[in-house]
């Protein structure tokens, strides 16, 4: 049998270039994952993201139903539409996961994050920090003669903006909780 003629130089993509037919637009999605609050469940979710190379922008978790021992994990992630679909399907496969909601596609969503800012400074700087905090509705939760700790809640953009303003004034340290999110309207 004669050998087949091979087309020269036809390999422009590797076999692992998996998604030529898929969009490569990066999207940011907020997912709410309802899980049994059992040992290791967070490790399963995080292990899925690291093992399969997905992004985590922020992740929060807490028990929301103490009787039913269920927790709500809110993950903000980025990826192509196909990767986002994969993430949801892979999350759905984890045995203690009850439900995966893509809040970004399920309608309008309220997202809030809480952050604490330590700002150091005296004189004008101190006054300017207080003035900006007022504009951003940040509360002072600790104060010394040359420092404040502010508490602020809002969406990620607002907190980023506040950080940008505080940095030149004397931002020393910051702690952020990550995003908690719910869909708008009456339905769960």
């Amino acid at each position, binding site marked *: *049998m004669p050998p087949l003629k091979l087309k020269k130089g*036809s*390999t422009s993509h590797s*076999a692992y270039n998996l998604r030529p037919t898929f969009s490569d637009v990066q999207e940011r999605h907020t997912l709410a994952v309802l899980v049994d609050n059992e040992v290791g469940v967070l490790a399963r979710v995080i*292990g899925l993201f690291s093992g399969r190379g997905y992004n985590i922008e922020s992740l929060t978790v807490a028990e929301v139903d103490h009787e039913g021992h269920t927790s709500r994990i809110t993950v903000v992630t980025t990826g192509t539409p196909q990767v986002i679909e994969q993430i949801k399907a892979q999350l*759905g496969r984890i*045995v203690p996961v009850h439900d995966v909601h893509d809040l970004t596609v399920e309608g309008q969503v309220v997202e809030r994050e809480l952050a604490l800012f330590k700002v150091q400074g005296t004189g004008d700087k101190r006054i300017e920090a207080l003035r900006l905090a007022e504009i951003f509705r940040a509360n002072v939760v600790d104060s010394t003669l040359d420092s404040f700790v502010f508490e602020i809640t809002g969406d990620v953009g607002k907190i980023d903006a506040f950080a940008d303003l505080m940095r030149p004034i004397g931002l020393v340290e910051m702690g952020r909780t990550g995003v908690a999110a719910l869909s708008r309207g009456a339905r769960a």
Partner: protein
Amino acid sequence: MTKNMGGRQLTGAQMVVKALKDQGVDAVFGYPGGAVLPIYDEIFQQNEIRHFLVRHEQAAVHAAEGYARSTGKVGVALVTSGPGATNAVTGLTDALMDSIPILVISGQVPTFMIGSDAFQEADTVGITRPCTKHNWLVKDTAALSGVLHEAFHVARSGRPGPVLVDIPKDVQFASAEYLPPTKVSTSHYRPKLQGDPAEIERLVALMEGAERPVFYTGGGVINSGPEASRLLRGLVEATGFPITSTLMGLGAYPASGDKWLGMLGMHGTYEANMAMHGCDLLINVGARFDDRITGRIDAFSPNSRKVHIDIDASSINKVIKADVPILGDVAHVLEDALALWKARGSRTNAGKLGTWRKRVQEWRAVRCLDFKQEGAVIKPQYAVSRLEALTKDRDRYICTEVGQHQMWAAQYMGFEAPNRWMTSGGLGTMGYGQPASMGVQVAHPESLVINVAGEASWLMNMQEMGTMVQYRLPVKQFILNNERLGMVRQWQELLHGERYSQSWSEALPDFVKLAEAFGAKGIRCQDPADLDDAIVEMLDHDGPVIFDCLVEKHENCFPMIPSGKAHNEMLMTNARMQGAINATGAVLV
């Protein structure tokens, strides 16, 4: 023992044995150690569950896999803490990749010592989290029976897979109430079985109009159960569409069927791959568009509508975009599709189908698997063909190791029924076949079980010969001995300038003497003229046999789609291999 012990107080160790019995387990593969001694003590005091003492925990897990794949039941392995558990990791990963339902029970140091780096402590649930479908560390005896029943439920539901239950030693000693399976409410975990009727209707409409259809089937058909294979056969016969299968799905449709194209993919047949490339309707039934199947993604089956039936939502649209995604169990979906297709008048595009069949016939006429046995050296293809001819009419199960021999077995052996073919597909685990064949033989004591092996793979778990001799498991180890890591050698010829780095099997044992050292029978054959007699001698021997078949050392496995190439760019027999893969292809495995 009384049948119903609901409500009775049992120790954790007693619960393990009781739960296994209540779940219908009759065989366990395992290895004892300090952290599982209470369970071994209970095993000692009963006769319903047989325990098979392997020689290495990896083998216990592969044996459980072989048991599971050949029966459709959950296979069970029992290992001790620390090294016992870490030795089980390869088997767990293998079972996860191939969706095999198994339960591994591991011992753990007592709860009050967890975290103290105690002797033989390992974070077993941490280590096995990514290689199990789910796992549990049970810290309270009262929860144990519930977890064990749930573990069986998770292992066999939906897309099957391996689960692990880690039991600290104090939990095995303590007592609590045992709950039988009927009294345990299994979790919310209930994957959807029925497919969406609207999608099934789209599938049927596509079937009615298709000009060049092909069924591409996979391990999901086997996992769905014998009913799925029966329905698949019904659908193929009724429509007359040609059918191909992945390595994992062989036997779901009989190899003797006239619609059968042979296996597809990297070492698939010419007709199967050309049909995949040229079809206008591709019906994927329980397969996952693995990279061994698709080759170059952007050139994969370029002109077809793609239907994908899978019970795992994450398989759909992972690699190839499905035009018609159907989430559900293969048997359920096929049943609905067949019923609807019949109700709508059993229509096909008969005229165009005739032309398509002629096209397929032309591809078949290429006879891509033909070879010539000439000269004094046995060709491996010839050895497998003779093994096939001399065993195909028997009640037979075939396992393999990983390498060229595995592909030759898939190409030259015909499977007429599901659950008769056990091979490590997803993980490609050398050392799988021998222990798997042991597990198959345990499940089917009267049947002929053969492990088609390469000499290098076979050595990876050769200690299990001891197990086979101990339990009189008459498995036939049919070794295609090319004194090479043949598949590695083939790739080095292909893309590393024939520099055969470390792909020799040096200092091989004398396999006949090795067999004898274990108390088994050894047969060597190197002359093609002696082959049939030697195989018959192997088959006639009532006990384990190592068959050392010395074959041509430099034979390559064809056809082959080189990495990074499309289905219609196959390399065929005699093709010059060098330079067949370019730089982009070379980074792939």
